[in-house]
């Protein structure tokens, strides 16, 4: 009995950590897809870039963990501005196929670019001393880094939701997701809103990629390997939704760690089957609007 309980805690704990990473990375994708109707298959590139910036800052330049993490988010967010202005913006409201092509192209470029700069091997994330080892949470002891990851993720999610609920930017964003044309006609500068949202989403993805570097290994194929995960979170959560992907990420994270524990052989397969079942039941996702 004790074993089962401890296993359940362990599954929940690791699932939660994974869910945080998935959510941080995917929430921006959900918003860009829902708000701008843009099929962004290159979203994982921003997460990967966050991972590379973080590990490089730490491993090559000996920057401490926390500043390096913030640096990753800022660098990725800044880098996303020109990409949005020069490439993405052309295709808002355009054909899906063009968007698929453009973003697949960016993924391919990222694969080559990352191999050129960092080589084909995976980048190790060495957490600082204060995050190594384990913490005893009474029931069981858990790895310190992942505990930090969960806390950090929870704090970010709260901040994000509060921001979207309370700030002027958040109000505009919600209005535009709800009805873009209406938002434009009441004078919201949607072009600027898109740019800011895109940068924010990319920055969060960079942060998520960096934080999650020990869960989703940083290597040149990152954007391609994990694309299905990010898309599943968005599809199951519901396009344009901000909270939907959180529920989806929780579901995916816990299911993933649960299946890996119970049925390590067929874990991934069940995840996909579950996704299909949910999409069959609700083609627009759990929180998607009809």
């Amino acid at each position, binding site marked *: 009995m004790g074993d089962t309980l401890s296993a359940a805690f362990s599954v929940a704990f690791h699932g939660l950590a994974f869910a945080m990473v998935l959510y941080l990375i995917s929430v921006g994708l959900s918003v860009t*897809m829902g708000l701008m*109707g843009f*099929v962004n*298959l290159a979203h994982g590139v921003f997460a990967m870039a966050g991972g590379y910036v973080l590990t490089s800052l730490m491993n090559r330049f000996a920057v401490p963990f926390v500043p390096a993490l913030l640096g990753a988010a800022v660098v990725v967010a800044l880098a996303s501005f020109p990409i949005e202005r020069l*490439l993405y913006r*052309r*295709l808002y409201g355009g054909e*899906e*196929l*063009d968007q*698929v*092509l*453009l973003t*697949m*192209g*960016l*993924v*391919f*470029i*990222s*694969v*080559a*670019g990352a*191999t*050129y700069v960092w080589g*084909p091997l995976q980048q190790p994330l060495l957490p600082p001393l204060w995050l190594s080892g384990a913490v005893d949470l009474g029931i069981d002891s858990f790895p310190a880094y992942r505990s930090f990851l969960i806390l950090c993720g929870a704090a970010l999610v709260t901040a994000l939701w509060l921001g979207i609920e309370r700030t002027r930017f958040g109000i505009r964003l919600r209005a535009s997701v709800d009805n873009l044309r209406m938002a434009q006609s009441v004078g919201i500068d949607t072009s600027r809103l898109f740019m800011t949202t895109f940068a924010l989403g990319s920055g969060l993805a960079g942060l998520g990629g960096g934080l999650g570097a020990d869960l989703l290994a940083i290597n040149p194929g990152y954007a*391609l390997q994990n*694309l*299905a995960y990010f*898309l*599943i979170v*968005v*599809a199951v959560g519901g*396009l344009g939704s901000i909270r939907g992907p959180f529920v989806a990420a929780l579901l995916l994270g816990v299911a993933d760690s649960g299946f890996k524990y119970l049925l390590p*052989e*067929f874990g*991934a*397969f069940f995840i*996909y*089957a579950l*996704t*299909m079942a949910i*999409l*069959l039941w609700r*083609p*627009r*996702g759990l929180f998607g609007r009809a």
Partner: protein
Amino acid sequence: MTPSRAVEAFARRHHYRPYEALPWVAAVASYFVFPDYLALGAQILATILFALSADLVLGYAGIVTLGHAAFFGTGAYVAGILAAHGWGEPITGLLAGAVAAAVLGFLSGLVVLRTTGLALLMQTLVVATMVAEAANKASFITGGDDGLQGMEVWPIFGRFRFDLFGHTSYLYCLSALFLCWLAVRRMVHSPFGRSLTGIRENVRRMHAIGAPVARRRLIIYIISAALAGISGGLIAQTTQFVSLSFLSLERSGTVLIMLIIGGVGRLYGAFIGVPLYMVAQNRFSEIDPVYWYFWIGLLMVFIVVFARGGVLGLFDQFQR
């Protein structure tokens, strides 16, 4: 214009034009001109068929899919597994691959085609990922990560052995492509094919003129899956190897790229895009496989920004 002239022009539209012989002349000529590259040539021909099948769903029915490799890989694995387990007869192997892919197309189409747009795109991706995962886990029969090995493909009609230089492979792939192309061309010009264009152009209107839209989309999805399966089977039989990459997202993506380089919804886009892509890949990969990705990525961005319609689209612009 007199009534008869307009009707006449319409009624003659499916007739063969001289330029349509070009790809075949080029393919036969290549056989004699590049005897050292027949193995690559065979792969190009089989991949043209894959791109042609993708063109049917993408270019004609307007279904944007990221999971077409599922059908390609299924055909390859079925043909490959048969050959590795004692049934090396190539033509029945190919047909078995086509049937298996068609069945998968039917089952997944029932689910996937209920949606459109973004949701459809994601569902095709999820289906393909599931198939890839299933193949990975069934390593006792597929070989898993190591790929499927030990295939023994018998001579075609019991007479023509697959030789080291690829003579047989090339002609085998060429014949299969030619037959499939005849069928596809016929279908594209049939009322069914025209109604697909109608669905792509305006689905609401298609409903309003009483067309069974869902059934048409499912039928073309199945046909396209079968053709992709044949293409996969051809590559499996001629290279005697199948790996998990046959089912990958990358494969689904690159076939779209090849098609777009040539031109979508034109029947001949595949014949231009695939050779261009594969010959370039062959050249550049020799220099450095990683940078191939860089250049192809850049090319895709370039196409989207500057050259929609691919090579054939540029032709159109030039003519105007």
